[in-house]
């Protein structure tokens, strides 16, 4: 018998009685103002939220971000956003991204409860771009927000998405003397641009 069958046979000897699988549909905290809650949480986890009236204002808002202005190399993954010196060399080996200063990339969905933004390989060539850039800027449609994680998983699809990530704030660690420090291995800072009008207040 191979290891797999041995393990399964051993598992089948278990005496646990059958318990039905509970459902979490419609479960979870909801907020009066989900976007406001998201902004609050993002700030709490060390990120910065910036509201942007419409697509046309994105470039201007980006220029207001210090790390963007002073960056030597910016990788731009948001359509319609241009910069004076866009150094968008298409890279073959992800290691070439080592010197990347700023990545501007689309975020797909925000979670009000925890300030997380869903991103995935649908929008990038190399998965590592989300963490290897010194600074990360995500651009999200302000309407794309859910109250809590349960709702988020109802919305997300995992077909054809080999890699996806919830990001909640800049990389951090509390491993030295339990002191929280930003900029461990991943991006040192996170800005989130919330583009367009906020979602209508949900009926409760």
């Amino acid at each position: 018998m191979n290891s797999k069958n041995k393990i399964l046979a051993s598992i089948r000897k278990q005496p646990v009685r059958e318990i039905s699988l509970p459902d979490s549909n419609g479960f979870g905290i909801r907020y009066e103002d989900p976007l406001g809650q998201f902004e609050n949480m993002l700030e709490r986890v060390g990120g910065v939220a910036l509201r942007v009236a419409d697509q046309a204002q994105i470039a201007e808002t980006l220029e207001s971000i210090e790390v963007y202005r002073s960056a030597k190399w910016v990788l731009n993954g948001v359509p319609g956003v241009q910069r004076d010196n866009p150094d968008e060399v298409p890279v073959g080996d992800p290691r070439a991204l080592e010197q990347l200063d700023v990545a501007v990339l689309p975020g797909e969905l925000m979670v009000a409860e925890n300030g997380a933004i869903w991103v995935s390989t649908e929008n990038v060539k190399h998965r590592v771009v989300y963490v290897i850039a010194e600074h990360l800027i995500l651009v999200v449609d302000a309407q794309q927000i859910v109250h809590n994680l349960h709702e988020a998983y109802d919305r997300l699809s995992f077909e054809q998405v080999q890699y996806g990530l919830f990001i909640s704030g800049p990389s951090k660690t509390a491993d030295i003397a339990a002191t929280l420090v930003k900029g461990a291995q991943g991006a040192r800072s996170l800005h989130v641009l919330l583009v367009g009008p906020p979602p209508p207040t949900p009926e409760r």
Partner: protein
Amino acid sequence: MNHPSQAARYVADQERAHWHDNVIWFMREKRDQAVNVIPEWEELRELGARIKGHTLSRLDDYLERFESQAKQLGVQIHWALDAEEHNQIVAGILQAAGARKVVKSKSMLTEECHLNQFLQERNIQVTDTDLGERIVQLRQEAPSHIITPAIHIKHEEVAELFHEHFGTDLSASDPDQLVAVARDALRRTFIEADAAITGVNFAVAETGGFVVCTNEGNVDMGTGLPRLHIACMGIEKVIPRIKDLGVFLRLLARSSTGQPITVYTSHFHGPAAGGELHLVIVDNGRSQLLQKRKFNKALNCIRCGACMNTCPVYRRSGGHSYGYTIPGPIGSVLGPSRKLKQFYSLPYASSLCGSCTAVCPVKIDLHHQLLEWRKEIAGAGILPWTKRFTMKVASLVLRNTWLYRTSGWIARVMLRRLPRAVVYHRLNLWGRQRDFPRIPDTSFRQWYAQRNHEQQK
């Protein structure tokens, strides 16, 4: 291995013991704050416990489902009966790919299997990339906590360590500066790595994907650069549906560090373009634990660390005093299930206050299990004679009214009069780090009788 003697060494350094106690309690307080803002927290725990209970009741089905889904995504699945087979498989994959430099992200399983040593013996260089794990690796120690592995080390000591290994200034001992040093050093390691090894927090049977949670982003740095990724998971990590992640991710981060979610929650559903993704599913004693009716709920564990943060014994005795890969209450129930003789003292490293059970996000009956283990251990006759003897005496005294009253009287009189050396002798294990409270003049009985008498007047 014996918890009391290891703990005694630890508390001898009073200042450090108090510092550790405070640092760990701080995490417990953050957990409370994060939990209190969720009105449905108790229902969430119930959901988590029931989903885990359900999964364990048909674990074989879910593992098979997971395997076939994962294979469809192009993931290569391996099964390992024990630590040795796990290590062989991982080494085999690395050798086949010609990998010499490997970056590893936090995985208690590979720690349990002593993978690092195994690979190093085969000329494969492993670097732990979680900062806390890197620190303990450089110090050639084991982690002392499952979430913050270097929590027992002060920042000045980290500065000394970095000075020694990276030649940095000794005065650069701010956590900020130290993190910056580690970041630069680790960046190079990531760039040069041939392969990445990670743990798994949750494996989803429905989709065949798996999720890993970190705050530092080391999993994503590690797996995003080399073309080979090996993930290692225990059989209990599988959950039925993608939406169950909503339940467990909410429970995990809030319970562990008091964050609303970890900074990075990475979902892997297949290898990167041109890359290879392997998954090793490991039993190593878990299926035997599953067969033990009284103890199998311990497999619900999502490794959040809340039970150790809240435990008065863990906080004061430090993670290393347990001598098992996983310390704290959960380690104390898992250890004896692996090797009863070696870890018999762990279920006694508890005051049975029940705080662990109260915080556990997946409702493991931790303090009940600790008590159950004590029964098994006493039954197996492996307790040292001092403990057996005192327990025998206690049982005799407690069963006999006359003896009980008389010894109470003797104790009250004697404890006040006897010289210290006579009371705190070698057999008084309890009194080694503790003093008796002030001895009252009257027994409760006398006080109660007197009070009744006075009230009737």
